């Protein structure tokens, strides 16, 4: 069985290669960009959504005449949600397909696995959604050919703290965090430092484990304390239950979260009437009223016949962001593109206006979404 599947894979990949080399030899006037995304496997929805956004953007760019007369051609591979596969594909895209840049992967782990290959081949890799802090920069300094267009986890935590202080005018916070994920720990740390630097105090910090369902005891104990906002760094599965149980106990202070809240499951778990005065930071919201977003939502609906989600928006911005840098690059090669990417300033995207900083992160507004009766109701922008 295994043997057959290997043979099958070989045949398929030969077909794919055949297809690629053919188009490459016939089309000299194209710019090839690699797409290395999770199209199957554990986080397939992230990859598929991102690619939908990318394809829409590329279609629009090509219809408008391409980049300085040259059309963009995407070379798309599936990394099966595996970091090792992502590395292999990055190598193949750079050495065999000769792409000028690679978009993706979507998750931090897989994206980081492709960075050494990028530095070695001098081809930039750009992710739309890798938010871990150490993706583009670590103790050894900036990773030369790695870029991203999303905020980092710590930018998100501090944006939540700023929102609590400035928009909600709250001063005393309780943090209920998922103790089993680095994501939640990072958010809790930056939230605390920003909140306290801005004159607030964190009255209590409670923890839970992923998979817990009963939060009544913790909520009862914080109920006796004096606080005016709850911050829940964690994912929707537990956050939904915490919100439901908090509201049932009569705790009606604003509840703040991060992009881990962004799922329709949150409303199912918490119940619509519990989701009032609930806010979370995110990349993008389809209820945002700015014209850039409205235009994107319209175009997206026309092509895919559904509401775009955050990954769709990030994918769309990612392709446009790279196209913008390509149009400014001196030559169409990796090194010039890298310089152009570094020089990006005030690029107007659907997920915000972004400028690249010295750590190859983007400086941009973070969107805070307010929920009312379980639905996205209003958005705010927080400048970091």
């Amino acid at each position, binding site marked *: 069985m295994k043997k057959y599947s290997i043979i099958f894979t070989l045949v398929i990949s030969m077909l794919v290669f055949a297809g690629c080399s053919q188009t490459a030899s016939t089309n000299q006037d194209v710019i090839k960009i690699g797409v290395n995304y999770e199209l199957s496997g554990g986080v397939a929805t992230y990859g598929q959504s991102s690619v939908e956004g990318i394809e829409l953007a590329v279609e629009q760019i090509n219809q408008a005449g391409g980049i300085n007369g040259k059309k963009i051609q995407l070379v798309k591979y599936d990394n099966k949600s595996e970091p090792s596969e992502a590395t292999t594909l990055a190598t193949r895209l750079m050495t065999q397909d000769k792409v000028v840049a690679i978009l993706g992967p979507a998750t931090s782990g897989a994206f980081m696995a492709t960075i050494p290959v990028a530095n070695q081949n001098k081809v930039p890799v750009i992710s739309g959604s890798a938010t871990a802090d150490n993706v583009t920069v670590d103790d050894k300094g900036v990773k030369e050919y790695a870029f991203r267009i999303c905020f980092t986890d710590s930018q998100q935590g501090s944006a939540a703290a700023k929102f609590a202080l400035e928009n909600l005018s709250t001063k005393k916070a309780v943090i209920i965090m998922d103790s089993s994920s680095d994501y939640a720990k990072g958010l809790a740390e930056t939230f605390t430092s920003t909140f306290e630097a801005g004159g607030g105090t964190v009255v209590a910090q409670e923890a839970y484990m992923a998979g817990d*369902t009963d939060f009544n005891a913790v909520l009862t104990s914080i109920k006796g304390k004096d606080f005016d906002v709850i911050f829940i760094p964690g994912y929707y599965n537990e956050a*939904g239950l915490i919100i439901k149980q908090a509201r049932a106990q009569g705790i009606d202070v604003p509840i703040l979260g991060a992009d881990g809240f962004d799922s329709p499951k949150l409303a199912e*778990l918490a119940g619509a009437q519990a989701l009032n005065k609930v806010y979370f930071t995110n990349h993008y919201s389809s209820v945002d009223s700015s014209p850039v977003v409205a235009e994107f939502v319209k175009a997206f609906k026309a092509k895919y016949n559904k509401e775009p989600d955050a990954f769709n928006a990030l994918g769309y911005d990612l392709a446009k962001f790279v196209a913008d840098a390509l149009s400014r690059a001196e030559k169409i090669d990796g090194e010039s593109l890298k310089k152009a990417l570094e020089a990006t300033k005030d690029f107007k995207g659907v997920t915000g206006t972004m400028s690249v900083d010295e750590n190859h992160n983007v400086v941009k507004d973070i969107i805070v979404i307010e929920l009312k009766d379980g639905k996205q109701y209003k958005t705010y922008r927080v400048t970091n």
Partner: protein
Amino acid sequence: MEQLLQQIVNGISLGSIYALIALGYTMVYGIIKLINFAHCDIYMIGAYVGYVCMAKLGLGFVPSLLVSMLVCTLLGVAIEKIAYKPLRNATRIAALITAIGVSLFLEYTTMFFATANVRTYPPMTGFMAKTFKLGDVVISAQQILIAIITIILMVLLQLIVKKTRIGKAMRAVSLDKDAAELMGINVDSTISFTFALGSALAGAAGILVGVYYNSINPLMGVLPGLKAFVAAVFGGIGIIPGAMLGGYVIGIVEVFVAGLGYSMYRDAVVFAILILILIVRPAGLLGKNTREKV
């Protein structure tokens, strides 16, 4: 003070669930000396049956409760017939390993059909969505429901065990299987009946949890199952009132540990109690020390 009362309310809701599951463990152990690890997965199946009834078929709470108890009863009896009966005279360790096997089988079969995703019950309406305030203490209708249904089921169980012929047979078989058989008691059907009772209670616990927490998944039985087992041992395994007592104690202890700000140590404390009980009073709180005959 209010906080103390509120925590006790929380603890009783949680403890009721543990007590309902612990009863099944303790009855089965009492009668065939088997720790039925598959029991916690019957509880999980109960929650899924309730989900199908309420979310897909649109049944009300009470009919769903009855359906899920019935399905779990049948499942419990079937498991006994297929997996445990052929091993009646095998070593106890063989039966124990089989129980673990059945448990994994149920978990991953459910995962195969229902996927590993968390599922949610439909939103509650009417009485089920209400909350009551006594001073600063908030009690939800669901918490009241859990407490009342648990008490009703426990009273029913006591009546069955103490007042009926089949209950008498159960007690006889658990005391001495061979002697009971000599007295003309049908041991096989008595054991089946015990599994049926225990599984029905687990099914009820499953749907109550579904309604109360609104979140079910195929592995939801594992941790509550272990804690209910601790509750059964705490009260004295094989003793029905012991399981009820144990369930409430474990529930309240867990809530207090979390309420004092040590929610990370909640599970550790529960299992520390197990170790302590096994050292200090191996027969459990209500158990009698029986001397091993040599």
